[in-house]
């Protein structure tokens, strides 16, 4: 499965090569022009009917992770996060370091040697380190370099009713949707862009939008989902299994209302379930895209992901399928010139 291949690959922001290579391999032969720009963004064009409006669909390739900052005398590895990671999810997890994917673990002090008060405070990044099973700096340095990227060691699992657990669903789910739509559509001209470094400040999207210069942009994302019973309904950003989430606003963009209304209408006409993304928190590549040059009309369509930015993110295949259907229906309308 494509999503398995994409999520099990490592692509920490700034080090997207492994993911980029999978994408290039997948879309080869299905698109008419492939360009890798100076930052590492993959910009492809699919030829088709000409339209007065230029459409760009994007998904970022990168994922949050860690990077090696030091190796101490005992061969233990210090790190800092790359992108937004809740430090509390790091403890007691296996990781893979560098190109050779050296396995290591993030341990913690045994409970027996802690005072009860200690439990109440989250462990800081400065208290954590990775153990790869060596005793000296010298041994560690044969395998690991400062600057090596570290990803969670988490496999792709299907479970429950139609659910998937994986790391990096944000945003391999978007990559997967974009790859599939590039492979399946015919005779519709649009740009597909796989961006780099979204998680560390929407770095790739601006330059990519500058070179494509689109009129309309659809950003594909994995977005946060927290749907437990106890909290007030209006605080629930998205639900699992209620279809793709369409963004209203976030920290980086007030999404174009007209485009949103058109998309809602398309969803309704095609009986595709959808929901609104009901939080202003977070942000995505749209932040840089909609202010590019003289401005771009943008929308974001997301697959809800529980435990986002963790090794155990969870999404629903049902939401994925409906996000894909919606995307296809939107392209159909675009082809008719109705977008």
């Amino acid at each position: 499965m494509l999503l398995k291949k994409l999520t099990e690959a490592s692509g920490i922001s700034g080090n997207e090569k492994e993911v980029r290579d999978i994408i290039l391999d997948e879309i080869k032969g299905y698109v008419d022009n492939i360009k890798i720009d100076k930052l590492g963004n993959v910009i492809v064009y699919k030829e088709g009917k000409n339209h007065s409006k230029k459409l760009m669909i994007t998904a970022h390739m990168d994922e949050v992770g860690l990077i090696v900052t030091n190796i101490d005398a005992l061969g233990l590895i210090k790190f800092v996060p790359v992108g937004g990671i809740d430090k509390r999810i790091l403890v007691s997890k296996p990781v893979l370091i560098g190109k050779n994917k050296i396995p290591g673990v993030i341990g913690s002090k045994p409970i027996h040697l802690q005072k009860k008060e200690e439990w109440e405070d989250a462990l800081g990044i400065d208290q954590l380190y990775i153990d790869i099973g060596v005793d000296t700096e010298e041994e560690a340095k044969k395998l690991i370099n400062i600057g090596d990227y570290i990803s969670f060691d988490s496999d792709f699992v299907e479970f429950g009713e139609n659910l998937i657990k994986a790391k990096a669903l944000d945003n391999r789910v978007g990559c997967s949707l974009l790859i599939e739509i590039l492979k399946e559509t015919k005779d519709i001209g649009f740009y597909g862009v796989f961006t780099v470094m979204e998680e560390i400040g929407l770095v790739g999207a601006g330059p990519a939008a500058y070179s494509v210069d689109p009129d309309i942009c659809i950003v594909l994302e994995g977005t946060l989902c927290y749907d437990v019973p106890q909290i007030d309904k209006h605080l629930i950003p998205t639900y699992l299994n209620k279809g793709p989430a369409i963004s209203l606003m976030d920290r980086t963009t007030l999404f174009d209302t007209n485009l949103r209304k058109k998309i809602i209408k398309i969803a309704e006409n095609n009986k595709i379930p959808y929901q609104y993304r009901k939080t202003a928190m977070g942000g995505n590549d749209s932040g840089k895209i909609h202010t590019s040059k003289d401005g771009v009309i943008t929308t974001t369509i997301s697959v809800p992901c529980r435990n986002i930015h963790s090794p155990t993110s969870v999404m629903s295949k049902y939401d994925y399928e409906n996000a894909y259907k919606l995307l296809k229906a939107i392209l159909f309308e675009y082809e008719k010139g109705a977008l």
Partner: protein
Amino acid sequence: MDINNFLEILTNGSSISGHEYRLNDKISSAFKIYTDDIYIDNLGNIIALKKGRNNDSNLKIMMAAHMDEIGLMVKYIEDNGFIKFTNIGGIDPRTLLGQEVIVHGNRDLYGVIGSKPPHLQEASEMNKTIKMEDMIIDLGYSKEEVEKYINIGDVITIKRKLRALQGKRLTGKALDDKSGIVAMYECIKELSKMEYEADVYFVSTVQEEVGMRGAYTSTFDINPDIGISIDVGFGSTPELPKEDTLDMGKGPGITLGGNIHPGLRQQMVTIAEEYNIPFQTEVTPGPTGTDARAMQITRSGIPTLCLSIPLRYMHTSVEIVDMRDIKNTAKLLAFFIASISNENLEGLLCY
């Protein structure tokens, strides 16, 4: 069976305290071929007997390594099918977030542990631990579906596969104290090639993590002349005081203190030195938190020893052991047993 394979089977399996039976077949079948008798007592301890050189009044040496592991238990099923849970044994709640689990109902269900997401937390909360009562297990099913398979009281295992790190180090969950069982297994293999007098009882004990309960009953039943607990000791890491820890790969810790018989301990040290087996000293003045504690005060009192296999990150799901330490523990145990006879025991026990 190769001991790495045996360790893999044991740690990848599940044996939450009180629910150890899931490993019964694996442990029994491994020990069986080397034993004269093997049985399971009322609490679930697996007792394997290997007889010594034929004589009528063989002395009895009992070894105990606990087969149980810490885990979780289902407390409540939410309206949307999420599971609320509590812990069995000592678990730092900080090690739970983002873990994968197996909930053992009338079928095993996979799930992941989640909580309130960062975006809905106050900035001040981000530095606080998420309490276990605020975490949930997501099984991916509706409440109706979950209730078909899961009951309140079902136990939950953290899902983790044994993995090789560099050198002889391995990482996994519940290496405390599956490493001890594997050391006993290696010892019984060694003993099969040796001459020794005592009848040796290899006991895989239950419920150590909740109060050494299996050790009490099995020791009562066997009534040994010597009891030896094989458990794990805190592996040294920078944040721990040197004096509380054992170095990895430098041999088992031979515990010293009130829980340990001084004469027998001296014999253990002498044997280690004689056979060039590396060892370290673990100082525990009071009762050890191991089966040795239970053994010592059973019936009218049992002379007790304790060996500790160095283990890092105890009670997390990424514990680390060094296979060399497991092998050296086994070797030391075998040579120690071979050194004990009806003739010298009285002298060794003399205060």
